């Protein structure tokens, strides 16, 4: 399956995306590849505002009919907001993983940490290598 990988954001090997927002906050979600692998999502747990998270810390859970998956924070920071809409409509992650399916927003401890993450080309290469 060729998945959608927009080049307006960064990625991690564990299939999270990270995008700087206009107000300086960082939004995090899971990629099209990840939502496709999980299947229909039925339950999502997002972190609460105020929580301090470390890079690589499990902060959210996405559960499909098939399996539950932890979502890890790509960078360190303080959670500003978890996407409250996902409680009622978890399927947004399936239909719009890069938009309305955002999981949480945080204030980064160090905004430059974003630059260390994979760009779209590197993530596409990673997906291609894994598919072999």
């Amino acid at each position, binding site marked *: 399956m060729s998945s959608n990988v927009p080049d307006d954001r960064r990625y991690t090997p564990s299939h999270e995306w990270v995008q700087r927002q206009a107000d300086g906050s960082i939004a995090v979600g899971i990629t099209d590849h990840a939502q496709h692998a999980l*299947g*229909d999502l*039925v*339950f999502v*747990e997002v972190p609460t505002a105020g929580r301090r998270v470390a890079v690589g810390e499990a902060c959210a*859970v996405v*559960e499909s*009919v*098939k399996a*539950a998956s932890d979502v890890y924070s790509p960078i360190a920071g303080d959670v500003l907001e978890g996407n409250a809409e996902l409680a009622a409509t978890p*399927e947004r992650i*399936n239909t719009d993983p890069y938009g309305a399916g955002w999981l949480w927003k945080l204030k980064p401890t160090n905004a430059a940490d974003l630059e260390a993450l994979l760009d779209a080309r590197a993530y596409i290469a990673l997906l291609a290598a894994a598919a072999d």
Partner: protein
Amino acid sequence: MGLRTPLYARHVALGARMVDFGGWDMPLHYGSQLEEHHAVRRSAGMFDVSHMRVVDLEGARTREFLSELLANDVGALVAPGKALYSCMLNEAGGVLDDLIVYYRDAAHFRLVVNAGTADTDVAWIRARAPAFTVVVRERRELALIAVQGPQARAQAAALLPAPDGVAALALPRFAGCALPASGPDHFIARTGYTGEDGFELMLPAERAVPFWDALLAAGVRPCGLGARDTLRLEAGMNLYGHDMDAHTTPLESGLDWTVAFGAGRAFVGRAALEAQRAAGVKRRLVGLVLEDKGVLRDQQRVLVAGLGAGEVTSGSWSPTLERSIALARVPAATPARVQVEVRGRLLEARVVKPPFVRDGRARVAL
């Protein structure tokens, strides 16, 4: 590469996500297993179940043979075409498989058995059939398509030659008939594994694709194994290998109702079941509705205050109820509330008597 049904190329062409199921390459879903589930509850969906095994038994003593082989009583099959759901047990009362047996005529019965156990089932049957001079014929050249949902029978029957359509619609529940105008070896039954009304059609492999395409053109939705599992779980139907296996008896699997202990009928496993009943059955299969947020999954531990633990045998999400449900094997005296260990936390669940959904509506208080 696994075994492939005659409809394999169709599943791939429809964009199915294919998975291995007991050695077969089968469609998990065609895009959304939740939508496929809803299609079956609301209109009609179709399933390729050609991986299941059709076994025809022929001979004057076939009924006598099956009377001994099966835990349920084929003596109940009086009208030609009538079907029965039964377990086939080993001598210890453990379940070798669950199956449906169809009475075709006085010297001919048909069994449909699960894909994963088909080879061992047939070996077991072949070992015992000669004593009754019963001939065992596997019908591996037949494909099976299940069409299920409130519109299923009407839509499927409309695609058959008129006399066959009439015969199919006249079938009572749990009965089948041949479709002579459609051709040899066509057989349709008003049975299914979804809790909805519908048909299961057995037909020559080379006719499977044309019939599938005709159903598709008529608007019947292709549905995969994912939806099949959530549908049968809502309907409170057991899945072999999960809710029961060779080490569990029907009495501890919610299948007491499928065992006929009528006077004088010897059947394989009877003595073991009677001994278990006399001693008191220690465990039973129950339904669970998860009250906290989360999803119940197979093998999670069920904690029962004062009585110890049980385990989830089939856990999943109920798209109709919009919460997680499960079947679980627990101590016999388990009361109305339990806790389940889900991803390291103890969540609250309510014990219910399945089915969870019937005729498209919740059967348990929410």
